[in-house]
């Protein structure tokens, strides 16, 4: 079974190769679309823009070569993860990005846990207590949260819980100048993580709550639930052991699809909270017009999505053994045949910052 899974993951990754190739091509031409080339940027920075100096830089970076030669050398570099040079940081782009990867992963993992956990909980409560004020409150909360811009949630949390009630720090990942290690350092980072992770999870929590509610309502109307009731099982057992497990599947499907959108959201959240991950790096690259770095981040985050999608596909087969490994995965749709396909389709339209 595990050998099959390994082969399957490999297949999925190979399937993603043309997409990665397409991103490389798009990136290459985007750089050339930008007004001015690297030589002009560098010459402008050093203050001396004599034609000889510009020609020297162009020769040094191969900018005087014909387009196809430039493209081939670009491809060759990408293959060994050489994504160019960040003129602003005076370093290779790849190194800069890999350094920040873990920080963003921490933020996204925390947000994923919060949003999926509370989304399932709130959605299930809203379905079980359908047509009560608790359910109405949860539904209203989800509708309003669904319409709120991420960065604004972050700023409101800062005003409330960092300025008005000084419980949490406004920015950064640890206390400036602190040299704590081990457990105390972990606690410090966790303290800084609370507000950014909450901010990033709010929108997705609303999405999963809506999805979980409709999925749970649908499941509770199914025949096997009636059978369980007829058998005289306690209501709690029916909800937790029978309904919940089946209703969770569409939520997990959606959570997998949302990784790509969450990466976009992290740019906003990280620039609001100064969380030093990929998003903040992108924000800084934007401001210093460091296009090499920006495109490198774009490229790497796309690869991350391809990898995550492959992993998510395998996770489904573990969660739901009915899904076969050999077939092309029905990931974009609900794997649960009678799930709320309409809701999932409509929600799939929504992928936002």
């Amino acid at each position: 079974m595990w050998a099959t899974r390994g082969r399957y993951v490999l297949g999925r990754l190979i399937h993603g190769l043309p997409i990665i190739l397409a991103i490389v091509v798009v990136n290459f031409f985007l750089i050339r679309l930008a007004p001015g080339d690297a030589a002009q940027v560098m010459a402008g920075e050093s203050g001396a823009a004599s034609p000889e100096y510009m020609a020297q830089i162009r020769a040094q970076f191969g900018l005087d070569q014909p387009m196809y030669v430039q493209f081939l050398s670009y491809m060759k570099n990408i293959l060994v993860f050489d994504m160019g040079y960040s003129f602003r940081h005076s370093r290779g782009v790849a190194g800069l990005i890999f350094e920040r990867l873990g920080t963003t992963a921490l933020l996204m993992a925390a947000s994923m846990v919060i949003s999926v956990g509370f989304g399932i909980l709130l959605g299930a409560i809203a379905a079980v207590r359908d047509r009560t004020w608790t359910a109405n409150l949860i539904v209203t909360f989800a509708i309003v949260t669904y319409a709120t811009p991420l960065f604004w949630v972050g700023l409101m949390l800062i005003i409330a819980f960092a300025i008005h009630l000084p419980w949490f720090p406004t920015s950064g990942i640890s206390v400036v100048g602190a040299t704590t290690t081990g457990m105390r350092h972990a606690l410090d980072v966790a303290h800084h993580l609370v507000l950014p992770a909450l901010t990033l999870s709010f929108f997705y929590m609303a999405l999963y709550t809506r999805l979980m509610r409709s999925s749970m309502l649908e499941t509770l109307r199914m025949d096997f639930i009636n059978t369980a009731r007829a058998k005289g099982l306690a209501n709690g057992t029916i909800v937790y052991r029978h309904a919940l497990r089946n209703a969770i599947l569409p939520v997990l499907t959606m959570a997998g699809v949302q990784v790509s959108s969450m990466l976009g959201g992290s740019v906003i959240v990280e620039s609001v909270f100064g969380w030093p991950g990929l998003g903040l790096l992108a924000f800084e690259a934007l401001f210093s017009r460091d296009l090499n770095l920006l495109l490198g981040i774009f490229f790497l985050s796309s690869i991350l999505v391809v990898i995550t999608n492959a992993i998510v596909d395998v996770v489904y087969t573990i969660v739901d053994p009915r899904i076969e490994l050999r077939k092309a995965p029905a990931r974009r749709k609900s794997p649960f045949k009678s799930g709320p396909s309409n809701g999932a389709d409509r929600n799939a339209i929504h992928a936002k910052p």
Partner: protein
Amino acid sequence: MLRTPQGAIGLLLLLFVAGLALGAPWLFPEGPYDMLGTPFSAPFGEFLLGTDMLGRDIAAGIAYGARISLIVGFVAALVIVVLGTVVGGVAGYYGGRVDAAVMRVTEFFQTIPTFIGAIVIVAVLGSTLPNVVGAIAIVSWAPLARLVRAEVISVKNREYTSACLALGMSDMRIMLVQILPNVLSTITVAGSLMVATAILFESGLSFLGLGDPNIMTWGFMIGAGRAAIRTAWWMVTIPGIAVLLTVLSINLIGDALNEALNPRHKS
């Protein structure tokens, strides 16, 4: 659509925002950039919604920002709907190689992180309003194309479509007269939600400083107000509420449209 209270609330809210946008030149003839009052004056004092760091009336900024938000939202959604319907419709109707190629392309657009994609496009091409609209449309049309394709496939196998084919109708005529009206309700609902998404996208881009520097937008106001967040809460809070209410109104209308147009799919 007005049968549900949510739909009615949404419509009223949207009409209010649209009225504000249309009436901006009459309500605030000085424009959003005029420094009329004392800087940092709180709401309900000198001005209804207070002033910003330069003494500009925030209410004027909200009214002029409404124009940009609505224009970007509706124009981007229109481009997305037209592009998604044409591409998804052709792929679904003809199938085969065209379909396979289109599916590959949409897969590409669904894999790239959309917001980062939009940032890259605007950063490279420059911060102008058409570029912002274009960037939002380019990164968001793929899910709609897939949705339309799926709907078209389900309609084209119905008997009435086969009957038209047997009668010798042209492909174009079948697509426009037989299939399009049957997928129109799905397109309308998805398109209305796209307006909301596009408005959120635009506010995010201008918050990051990628908006057109010569245009007052809600996202820009929030981004600028950040510097004074410790002393002047209203500068970031009020434009955010404007975004929230506008997006909320469109989502409510979208939900009401869905219930009215697709009664079978009621969830």
